[in-house]
């Protein structure tokens, strides 16, 4: 591969395509009338961005000799990538208006942020892949559940915007194209259920190995991981019992995801040590 097309260069290309998709959609929608084929244009940017991001992660994977989940930079990139995979499924299945635009903005923000914060990519943890398939399953499901929670935060944000527009009678511009309150509420509950299920399975698999050897996980990671899983489970239970609904439920989903993102630091610190990347060649 050309020396210009390094992993970071490919990831930059992916991030910029996400950004281009987001800006194209935003400009078109603020003019109230979406041009014909906007969905196609946006999805082309998203598929292109996703392809470059995957290529970047693949090149990085070759360099680290395993799945690229060895530091905060890689995990954040993977969270953005998995959210986009979910969008391709959820967006197609439910035809959620504007979700593509929000997903593009979200993936662009995460990807660009991770590329700009150099310390996130300065150190690499030990490889978690290639040794034990159960641990690999645990890690992959955990990161994928973060992708689901990320998408949930997006649809919750859309719910908050739609609620705000209806309450303040500001119904034009971007608000015009938002999905209905009821549709967003149904999608939010389904995404929360999926995320909780994936995270629970991931924690269950991790717990089996932790019981065999409790030294493999340090206390901060243990507390934070169980804490995140437990809070999401409680939120799911409260929503199921209709004790936490509508705007409050949406706010909780948004705030909780940001807290979950912050938890990546303690979770990742457990296995961080310096590794020099030596790309295969």
């Amino acid at each position: 591969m050309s020396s210009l097309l390094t992993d970071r260069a490919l990831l930059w290309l992916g991030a910029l395509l996400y950004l281009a998709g987001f800006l194209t959609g935003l400009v078109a929608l603020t003019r109230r009338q979406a041009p014909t084929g906007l969905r196609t244009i946006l999805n082309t940017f998203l598929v292109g961005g996703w392809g470059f991001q995957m290529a970047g992660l693949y090149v990085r994977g070759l360099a680290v000799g395993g799945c690229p989940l060895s530091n905060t930079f890689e995990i954040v990139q993977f969270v953005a990538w998995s959210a986009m995979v979910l969008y391709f499924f959820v967006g197609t299945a439910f035809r959620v208006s504007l979700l593509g635009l929000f997903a593009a903005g979200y993936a662009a923000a995460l990807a660009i942020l991770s590329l700009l914060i150099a310390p996130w990519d300065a150190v690499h943890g030990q490889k978690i892949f290639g040794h034990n398939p159960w641990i690999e399953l645990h890690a992959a499901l955990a990161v994928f559940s973060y992708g689901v929670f990320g998408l949930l935060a997006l649809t919750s944000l859309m719910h908050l915007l739609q609620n705000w527009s209806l309450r303040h009678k500001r119904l034009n511009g971007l608000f015009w194209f938002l999905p209905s309150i009821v549709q967003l509420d149904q999608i939010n509950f389904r995404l929360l259920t999926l995320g909780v299920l994936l995270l629970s399975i991931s924690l269950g698999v991790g717990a089996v190995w932790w019981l065999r050897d409790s030294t493999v996980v340090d206390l901060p990671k243990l507390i934070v991981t169980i804490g995140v899983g437990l809070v999401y489970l409680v939120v799911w239970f409260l929503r199921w019992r209709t004790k936490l609904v509508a705007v409050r439920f949406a706010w909780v989903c948004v705030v909780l995801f940001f807290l979950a993102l912050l938890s990546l630091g303690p979770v990742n610190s457990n296995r961080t040590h310096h590794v020099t990347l030596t790309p295969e060649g």
Partner: protein
Amino acid sequence: METPPPVLFLLGASHHTAALAVREKLALDETRAATLATRLQAIPDLREFTLLNTCNRVEVYGVAPAASVEQLTSTLGEVTGCTHAELAGVLQTRVGHHAVEHLFAVAAGLDSQLVGEAEILGQVKAAYDGALARHLTGPVLNRVFQKAFQAAKHIRTHTAIGTGQVSVATVAVDLAGRIFGDLATTKVLVVGAGEIGLKTAQAFQSRGAGSITVASRTLSNAEAAATQAGGWAASLAELPELLATADIVTCATAAPGHLLGAAAVAAAMKQRPARPLFLIDLALPRDIDPAAAAVANVFLYNLDDLAVIAEGNLARREAEAAKGRAIVAERTAALWPQVAQTLSRGI
């Protein structure tokens, strides 16, 4: 003596030129419209014509020598009973490409009282289809009307003249869609059996609302309105129970005070916290306590709120109309040389 060449013309009156009282006289019911068509058919120089007859306009589009157009005015006067003086002030005549431009604008809804309304396109199509079926059209009108339909479709697709509802009832229905999405599963409760309540109920019915219940102080009034709206009747005494199960509540009574207090709304929401409640207050004085808007998952809109949205939509449509008129001018300029050539050949 050589026959003068035919021209494409429009002769008629609309809300732009005629006051309501004159339009009432000009309005043609089916019988009079058929009479006018028969009388026009009898004019030998009138080679092609189509009669467009709506609540806001009576217009004849035709092909005839310029001198014959005058004759149509007297025929129109005879059929409608309008005097020559009355017609002189309101009838407008447009010839050549001006007639084409006018038809394009009419078909696209640019000339309508509510700019951008879509109903007019169907009316123009019906008028043309009727004339075509009776062999009243020919090469000129066939081409011009087909192009008018294409232009109207293009304008509706490429400008925003048709977006946003412009009546209070349809704005309310639109808002309900933004809260519930598909209305097929929604339960609509209309409080008040008057005209406004009935119109709103019918607007929800036409958009496929799941069920409609009309509640009124007098049960017989509720039953009459419910029959017209295709729903159920209830008495006002059942309001607390109905409120707990309804998704959309429209209030339009003449009650002097609030029929629905914030406490009653909050109590209803406790029984269905996850399901939004859309309250529409169309009454003056208001039927719903404004404090009900503060209850979680409740959306309250009153008459002023809906009117502001409708007026905003109308203003936006009118702003978009300029783009539509530019398209009309462009398409007229493209079509007119071909039509002129057909006319110059004497058809």
